[in-house]
């Protein structure tokens, strides 16, 4: 008899667990219709009705406006996310820590620069309905997994460093514009700039590319390869490594048979650092030019590649100007060291765009409650036009083509140009090591 009770109990336990795990998702909060009893001597105050297509976020007086982040703040590529987060913190300071007299609550999750990380981080954030907007993700592979979840939850998402063209390409399944926008460039731009540099400036005619299976790396090396071939060069091989692979000897042996003059590997750490080291111990590749992209813009590249980092080039956005110099000073003053990646300015602008959009669409109630319509916020961010940011003048809803190559679609807000930076041995300091050796268009 006890055995049967035990079996029944176990079945009920399992059923409870299944139901709670597979239950319907929490729906975004809808503001209650406020009506008040008419006061005898005064006209009744206007009632706020949420007419937003998705719903409204209600921020009571004294409550904070919740902006969350989904960035890579742990693991081998933590400098990428931590740098962006630092940029946002400076922006919050510059805004006085408030949006429309409400404090800003800023926290978030680690994205891990992988689809799994994006999935788990996105799920955690999507469950919190107090979040108004999310600044993230760092890596495009996280975005592919996180965007459906965050978009479903009604958030507005602005990324400081996603660059895969797929994320804003019209008709693509990963395109979540207008819920999504980004202040970083589109890789259609970066890949072509890198190819131009390799062919016209370095004068190489044979190149090989390596990606790591991620959305960003695969698409970027493809853009590079297409443009390089268009310019008249030959791509000897386009191959791939596992992001956590340590022994690159068989890939290097494969590439060495084609004797390329340049290796373009727009991947992340630790694979990028190991390739730099192991290219020097592969017969045939010791003298090849090594070039990466903005995923390898980090002090950890110098520690990973050791003495072999001398002469290593990366394609990355060009930043500069007076507004940027001020940001650089504030960064050093606040954190005691210089920037550790290249997207801090883009993250700063991402926060400022969201803040401007909130200020535009928010409705302040008679009792001081802030109501922010989610769809209206998305539209406001999407329709940001000629916004003066630290990285330049940002416009989020235009399409731009250069010689038949689309470098901007709606959702791409970026205004930065492309540059090639070069590393030297020694300590990492932006503009000195790595230093800018070429800016596109100059």
């Amino acid at each position: 008899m006890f055995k049967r009770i035990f079996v029944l109990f176990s079945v009920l336990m399992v059923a409870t667990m299944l139901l709670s795990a597979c239950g319907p998702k929490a729906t975004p909060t809808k503001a209650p219709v406020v009506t008040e009893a008419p006061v005898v001597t005064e006209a009744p105050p206007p009632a706020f009705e949420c007419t937003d297509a998705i719903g409204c976020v209600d921020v009571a007086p004294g409550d904070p406006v919740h902006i969350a982040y989904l960035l890579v703040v742990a693991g081998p590529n933590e400098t990428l996310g931590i740098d962006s987060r630092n940029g946002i913190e400076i922006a919050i300071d510059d805004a006085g820590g408030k949006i429309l007299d409400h404090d800003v609550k800023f926290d978030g999750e680690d994205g891990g620069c992988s689809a799994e990380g994006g999935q788990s981080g996105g799920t955690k954030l999507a469950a919190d309905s107090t979040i108004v907007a999310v600044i993230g993700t760092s890596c495009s592979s996280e975005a592919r997994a996180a965007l459906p979840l965050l978009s479903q939850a009604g958030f507005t998402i602005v990324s400081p460093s996603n660059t895969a063209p797929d994320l804003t390409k019209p008709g693509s399944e990963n395109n979540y514009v207008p819920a999504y926008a980004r202040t970083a460039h589109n890789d259609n731009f970066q890949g072509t700039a890198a190819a131009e540099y390799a062919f016209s400036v370095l004068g190489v005619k044979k190149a090989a590319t390596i990606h790591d299976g991620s959305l960003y790396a695969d698409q970027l090396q493809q853009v590079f390869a297409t443009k390089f071939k268009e310019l008249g060069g030959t791509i000897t091989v386009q191959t791939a490594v596992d992001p956590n692979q340590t022994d690159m000897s068989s890939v290097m042996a494969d590439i060495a048979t084609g004797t390329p003059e340049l290796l373009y590997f727009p991947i992340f750490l630790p694979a990028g650092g190991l390739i730099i080291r192991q290219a020097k111990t592969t017969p045939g590749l010791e003298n090849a030019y090594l070039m990466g992209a903005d995923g390898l813009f980090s002090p950890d590249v110098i520690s990973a590649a050791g003495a072999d980092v001398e002469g290593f080039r990366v394609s990355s956005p060009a930043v500069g100007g007076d507004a940027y110099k001020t940001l650089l000073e504030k960064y050093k003053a606040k954190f005691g060291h210089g920037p550790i990646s290249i997207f801090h300015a883009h993250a700063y602008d991402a926060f400022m765009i969201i803040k401007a959009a909130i200020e535009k669409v928010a409705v302040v109630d008679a009792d001081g409650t802030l109501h922010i319509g989610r769809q209206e916020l998305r539209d406001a961010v999407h329709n940001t036009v000629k916004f003066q940011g630290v990285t330049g003048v940002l416009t989020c809803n235009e399409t731009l083509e250069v010689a038949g190559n689309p470098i901007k679609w709606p959702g791409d807000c970026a205004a930065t140009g492309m540059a090639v930076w070069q590393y030297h041995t020694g300590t990492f300091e932006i503009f000195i090591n790595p230093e800018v050796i070429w800016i596109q268009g100059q």
Partner: protein
Amino acid sequence: MLRTWRQRITFTDIMVWAIGLAIAVVVVVGTIKTLQSGKYETGVWLDLTIKGLAVGGVYALIAMGYTLVYGILRMINFAHSEVFMSGPFTAVFLANALAQSGFLNKQPLLSMLLITLLSMTVSAVVAMLLERIAYRRLRYAPRLVPLITAIGASFFLQYVFRGLYGSGFKGYPTLTSLQGSWNILGIVVYKIQAVVIISAILMMVILYGIVQWTKIGRAMRAVSEDKEAAELMGINVDRIIVFTFVLGGASAGAAGILYILLFPIVWFFMGFIPSIKAFTAAVLGGIGNVAGAFVGAMLLGLLESIGPNLFLDGLGVVNPSQLKDAIAFIVLVLILIFRPSGILGERVTQTKA
């Protein structure tokens, strides 16, 4: 005779043989096609062989830990991957300090000795603590219990080190005296590869010597043959077991330093894959067998290094180097199916009372 043979063959046997045959066909056809296409010259194969032997040497030293512990306790120490990781992850701080002060490049031999000593000590201490805290009480428990404890200890140590040293990775400084290569008989041999291979062989010889020719080695072999009888002969079994763990830990620490000479990046998760491959190597050579660990590891290193380019490239597999790990694990599965006792077999006899 024929009747009993036909009766004994089951469907699973046929399936397994079919899989083995399929893999053999793939390997042979791939090899022939790659060599026929002439894509790689002999120099490339030699270079890959040397790299394979270097990696194999590292696996051999890690496999020593697995094989010794299995021999003594009949248990697979899954936490050995963290014993391997703890050494170089701690020594990286010393290495970077030495590099900053310039001592590393002025006195490379002395610095490397210090770094190796630190790594071996840390790994040995971690192994000793593991034995004392996690395994001693469970010595007479059913087989599954220490196994699960080992897995738990592995996770625990990984995240302790993640908490202590951070989740990012650290890089080892470059040794200028080990840069470059020698040209021996027309073959380009990179200095680092040569140093790793020679050190690995040297350490294996020392370890083999300890196990075969010293008194304490004899005591180890006695305990692994029959624990109760050894105790009756006056051997302090507890001390011998601790010594075994310390020996395995020290060799894993040394393996860690050789590993970072080849791949100079350490992080809290670095122990996982190399140790699984070392375990494969130990099983390949015959677990419980010291010479077997060496043979298995060298063979595995070679297969891993040459395999993707030799077997898979010819068949037109795209990006064959991504299947490098797959080759290592297929080897493990095949060995367990076709020759579970390994190449050199289990040396220790299992007498049943």
